[in-house]
């Protein structure tokens, strides 16, 4: 490819080269090679450009209708659940896994929070903690099956998705807890729906939680040993093990954290829709994978940044709202998202060729 590394040819003599090598390199790389290099170093660059580009197009087409604080608020509101779940999904996909059970864990956790409060009369905060605990526990089972029993993550979480969803329906008896009841008796469950406004745009705690969560995970993945281990395990688990990384512990912690984040998404879901419904959030797993893939995280693991997932989720949100405001058929959104997914994976493959 565009990386015929001249230093490698002169491995022996090129001992005392200075930074000049780098300059020489980049000028030889050309525009396409340079772009490839930038994307290789910053994989979330593509979704950011797509996001800004999409927003620009909708602003040009719709004007102030799209740029209004109201529209921006709406996008964030609609994206928050997918954004939180996509954060969990990103962690798992970075380890070269996939978590199909995220949506089911989210719904089941929200049902536990609701039913524990209303069926058993447990104080809402305690029920919330129970819901979060159940989410983490399901994640732990996933992690154990992947790491210890060595089953493929796809199969483990495909099974877990069905198991958790069925448990969810059996346990809740398909019963929805109404919004008014929650508001009257256990407003704590709707905590994530609490609104406050800054300069005409109204935010909810859920939106803030999503942004803080992504920021914290971004820091942790980049600046802590654990974060580096997550990437190393996704890149090449054997090499990571040989370098002294505890692969089992890393995988367990990733799946447990994923389960816990999904449970938080369940809590945020109550805030978003007001009620506790066992039938909500059915598409969260596919939507989260879509956000992660559009966000430039490699499905093969070890590559990408969690910021990309946020951009990916926002791109979907911007398209959805923009096309709706334009009065287009909702199918156009899906068509465009489909195109973006395929393009994103093609770009990922291209970026990987840097190593070839």
């Amino acid at each position: 490819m565009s990386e015929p590394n001249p230093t490698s040819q002169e491995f022996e003599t090129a001992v005392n080269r200075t930074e000049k090598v780098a300059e020489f390199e980049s000028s030889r790389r050309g525009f396409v090679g340079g772009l490839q290099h930038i994307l290789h170093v910053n994989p979330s660059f593509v979704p950011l450009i797509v996001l800004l580009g999409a927003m620009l197009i909708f602003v040009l087409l719709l004007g102030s209708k799209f740029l209004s604080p109201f529209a921006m608020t709406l996008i964030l509101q609609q994206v928050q659940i997918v954004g939180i779940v996509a954060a969990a999904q990103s962690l798992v996909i970075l380890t070269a896994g996939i978590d199909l059970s995220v949506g089911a864990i989210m719904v089941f956790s929200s049902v536990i929070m609701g039913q524990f409060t209303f069926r058993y009369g447990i104080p809402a905060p305690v029920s919330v903690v129970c819901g979060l605990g159940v989410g983490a526990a399901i994640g732990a089972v996933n992690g154990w099956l992947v790491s210890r029993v060595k089953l493929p993550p796809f199969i483990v979480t495909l099974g877990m998705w069905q198991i958790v969803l069925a448990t969810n329906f059996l346990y809740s008896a398909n019963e929805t807890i109404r919004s008014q009841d929650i508001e009257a008796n256990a407003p704590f469950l709707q905590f994530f729906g609490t609104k406050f406004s800054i300069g005409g745009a109204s935010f909810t705690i859920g939106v803030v939680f999503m942004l803080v969560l992504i920021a914290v995970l971004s820091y942790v993945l980049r600046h802590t040993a654990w974060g580096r281990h997550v990437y190393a395990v996704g890149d090449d688990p054997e090499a990571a093990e040989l370098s002294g990384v505890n692969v089992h512990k890393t995988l367990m912690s990733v799946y447990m954290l994923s389960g816990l984040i999904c449970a938080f998404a369940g809590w945020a879901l109550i805030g978003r829709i007001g009620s506790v419904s066992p039938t909500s959030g059915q598409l969260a797993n596919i939507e989260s994978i879509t956000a992660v893939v559009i966000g430039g995280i490699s499905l093969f693991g070890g590559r990408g940044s969690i910021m990309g997932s946020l951009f990916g989720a926002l791109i979907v949100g911007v398209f959805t709202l923009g096309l709706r405001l334009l009065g287009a058929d909702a199918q156009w959104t899906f068509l465009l998202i489909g195109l973006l997914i395929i393009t994103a994976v093609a770009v990922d493959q291209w970026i990987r060729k840097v190593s070839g």
Partner: protein
Amino acid sequence: MSDNTPVVQGRGIVKRYGHVTAIDHSDFELRQGEILAVIGDNGAGKSSIVKAICGATIPDEGEILIEGKKVNFTSPIDARNMGIEIVYQQLAMSPALSIADNMFMGREIRRSGFMGKYMRQLDRPAMEKFARDKLTELGLMTVQSINQAVETLSGGQRQGVAVARAAAFASKFIIMDEPTAALGVKESRKVLELIQDVRARGIPIILISHNMPHVFEVADRIHVHRLGKRLCTIDPKDYTMSDAVAFMTGAKEPPKEGTA
């Protein structure tokens, strides 16, 4: 501890897998400051014996002494904690991560103070400086940036980083498994020079290799492994390559034990 205490001594090591005896009462000895090459035909068990020494397999019988003290490693991590480093044939590096990240994988340095203690933040400047210093010491700073991904390096450069990592952290000795097997002529040459550089720093090396010219070029002694045990140890100055191959394959009777 006197100067001639062997760095590693294996006595009567046995390892069986079902009916197969991979190591059959084998001895092993690595002396201070030397490069010991381990040669043997495929299936002779040369990697088994080395695995037993570094804790990757646990021998059924026999004992291993490191600097005269008996050890019972249960994993390569135990060995690593004692200052034994291994350069694997497949290099054990994460291609997408940087050189600095790879050098410190599994033993990262955290920042001091609040950011390190409570925010668990890595001390990147310190790790990068250390990695740069180590690569420079070994004349490997042909890489453009310590933060470039390992996958953008050539095969020889990757091997160089792996050797530098081992040399940086090894206080006892280094095991190298076929370090030149995947490299071209020039790159092999560079790696052989590196191996000699490392020995010059006083770190003994166990070199597993199939490449006789390379073995004869750098080794101080050659451990010939045959049928699961040490057949003999020879001095490369006293024998030719074809002698070594003949011992390895059983075409020629070995010299009496202890010639080298």
